[in-house]
């Protein structure tokens, strides 16, 4: 009899406390706070940017004009935990400046011509980035360093007569910028960055040691996993 009562009490208590157990199961917080895929996997990011290019260094003496022909496509592998990313970018920059007719005096030679000065650079650069906020943050300021090569062509046309040089040159880049997602869980966002690009390029006839430039670019980026 006593044991029967005990069993009844246990059944009663189980019946009463059952909803409480159920609630504990539903409330288990770790089920709903699993890390985002961006924190779990190495993910991908592509960005397309364009903007202003300013001649720097000895190149500034040769090229008096800025350019808006300054584009870059970059691809990044974004690491989940350590705020780093690694990738590469391909760029296209073109500077041009036409000088009105004047007489250029050389040693024992005078040349009257309309000069057209042009530089085109196609850099391919391997980059590493450090971000100041976590991979899930909607705003991610970053710094970046890159090294690579570029096909560079520097020309100074006297009329249509070409002088100058071209070749495959070393490229070193240092950048700082920010990426802002349009929505905090979204894939698309806006990117703005400034890059100092150093390219050693010795053209003795123009007194140039480098064709460096400061690039300010704005564009869109897309991330996915």
């Amino acid at each position: 009899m006593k044991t029967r009562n005990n069993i009844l009490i246990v059944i009663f208590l189980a019946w009463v406390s059952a909803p409480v157990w159920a609630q504990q199961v539903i409330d288990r917080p770790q089920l709903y706070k699993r890390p985002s895929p961006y924190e779990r996997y190495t993910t991908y990011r592509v960005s397309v940017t364009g903007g202003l290019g300013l001649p720097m260094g000895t190149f500034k003496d040769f090229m008096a004009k800025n350019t808006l022909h300054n584009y870059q496509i970059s691809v990044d592998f974004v690491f989940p935990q350590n705020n780093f990313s690694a990738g590469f970018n391909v760029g296209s920059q073109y500077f041009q400046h036409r000088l009105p007719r004047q007489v250029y005096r050389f040693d024992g030679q005078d040349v009257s011509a309309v000069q057209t000065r042009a530089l085109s650079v196609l850099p391919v650069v391997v980059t590493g980035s450090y971000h100041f906020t976590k991979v899930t943050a909607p705003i991610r300021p970053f710094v970046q360093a890159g090294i690579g090569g570029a096909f560079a062509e520097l020309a100074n046309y006297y009329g249509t007569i070409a002088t100058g040089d071209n070749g495959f040159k070393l490229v070193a880049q240092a950048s700082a910028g920010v990426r802002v997602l349009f929505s905090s869980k979204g894939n698309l966002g806006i990117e703005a960055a400034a890059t100092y690009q150093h390219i050693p390029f010795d053209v003795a006839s123009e007194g140039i040691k480098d064709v460096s430039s400061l690039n300010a670019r704005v564009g869109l980026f897309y991330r996915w996993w």
Partner: protein
Amino acid sequence: MKKSFFVLSKNILFLGVLMTVWGACTPDPLKDLTPEETQVFITNYEKNTKFGDYKTFSLADSVFTLQNQRSGVSTLPLDFRMLGSVTNNMAKRGYNRVSKTSNPDLGINVVRISETQSGVVANYNPWNSYWGFGGGVGGGFYYPPTYSYYQTTETYWHLEIVDLKKAQAGQQASIIWNAQIRGSGIFDESTVATIVDNVFAQSDYLKRN
């Protein structure tokens, strides 16, 4: 195996096409150049020459023409216009024109050069690195950069002043001044006088004291 090779080669092809398209984004720097802007006047002079020491000059009454290995003379209205402009400019600088037989100090040649080049070039470095004008006709001229199989013809004016005063018997007289006039529209009768004026204007040292 065969399939993966196909996919790989397709990818490389795609990459190649992509880079070509990317590279083709570079604009042509000379496409908006007017004919007048293409004109280049190059003058060379012998630095130790005192141009004030000379008094007279002689000029042929026709223009010499050089076309690759062939040479001749030409007496088109354009040529007379050219010779007239050179004579006027020399007179303005204080030199007297005399006949060839009366011992002129300076001899002037006006030459129209037409050169045709053909061949094949590897296009990694299409630029001729520096100025290549030497003295004298036919040597060291610059040819515009071209790719693969090419044939170009460039025709230009070449003027030269020869020092007959110091020339010794049996020796070639030295050239103390020359000019090249290159570009579009330089064989236009209406503009040739202005062009010659420009050539002399940039040679301000060329005058009798």
